[in-house]
């Protein structure tokens, strides 16, 4: 565990155009482990909802007889939530507005999820 590295990673993620917050969460209990977010983003809610989505996705993949998820992208009309698995049970999560560069954000999250140790 290296919180300084985590914070650097979160800051870089929030530097992507359109990103309004980045968190490291524990998917087991839906709690925030580390965060960097703009004011107004309810990071505790993000953590709980992202963890619930991860749980649902794991069950879906089990029903499909495929491996457990490594990432989730929820894209909606006014924004998106992206989550990438780190070492269990940690996930790196980003919340972005509708104008975010989702392709770049996805790759960045994937790179940084690897440093969550």
């Amino acid at each position, binding site marked *: 565990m290296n919180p300084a590295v985590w914070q650097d990673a979160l800051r870089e993620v929030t530097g992507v155009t359109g990103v309004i917050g980045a968190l490291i969460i524990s998917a087991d209990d839906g709690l925030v482990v580390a965060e960097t977010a703009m004011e107004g983003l309810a990071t505790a*809610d993000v953590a709980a909802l992202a963890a619930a989505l991860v749980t649902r996705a794991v069950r879906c993949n089990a*029903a499909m*007889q495929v491996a457990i998820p490594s990432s989730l992208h929820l894209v909606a009309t006014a924004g998106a939530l992206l989550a990438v698995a780190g070492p269990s049970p940690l996930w790196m999560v980003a919340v972005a507005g509708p104008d975010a560069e989702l392709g770049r954000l996805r790759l960045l999250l994937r790179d940084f999820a690897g440093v969550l140790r």
Partner: protein
Amino acid sequence: MSDVIEPSAPASRGLAFLELGERLRQRGQFAAAATVALAGLGHYPALADAYDLLARIRADQGDDGAATNAWHAALECEATHVGARKGLAFVAFRARDFIAAERQLELAAMNAPHDPSVAAALDRVRSVQPAAMPDALPHFTDPASGMLLYDMQGMRLAGGADDAGEGTGDALAAEGAGLSREAARAARLLGLGTVRHLVIEAPDARVAMLPVSADAALLLQRGAGMPLGRLLALATRGAQAAADWLERIG
């Protein structure tokens, strides 16, 4: 058989009849090979490799219907049987149904991601598709299409996860409805608006979930090698077709 996507003989599991049947098949003695395979199946009625052998014999005899039935029987015995997937891909390829061939090979690749023969066959199938084919969509009501339409009560409306059977599709519909509800809840509570799509990436698969209406959603499952943009383009077309279908039957 064609050498384009040749169904391969499985590594022997030590059963003499499999080796004998395979040797007879390779010599072109199909009737004798079939007799051996059927006799073996009499002793081992749940052995996927025996059905696979019988299917390859039938395919060599030009009886694609019987071959398809035997490969489906192999999958019922062993859902991850790569030879059966390759065989079904071969039959589809021979019928010039390139989408189905690709789909079967993608399923084979999910079970054998490091099998070079599967990867080569997949490349081959993709390379011979006409230019317009990458956007072609198998019908979503086909249980083997990898598309599943379900309602928000978790009931399967059409399609399936693969051709593993109705039970798998029903179980996935139940889980898919939970996933759809959770995605809608997260989007609403976080002020993200209405869900456009949810993509799940896994080491061996990519899945897209798109709402089709207020009461229904579509899941599209493909191999991990499919680019995300193409997955979403296919899913969007599938969702549109599903919406039209629901309107017709509604």
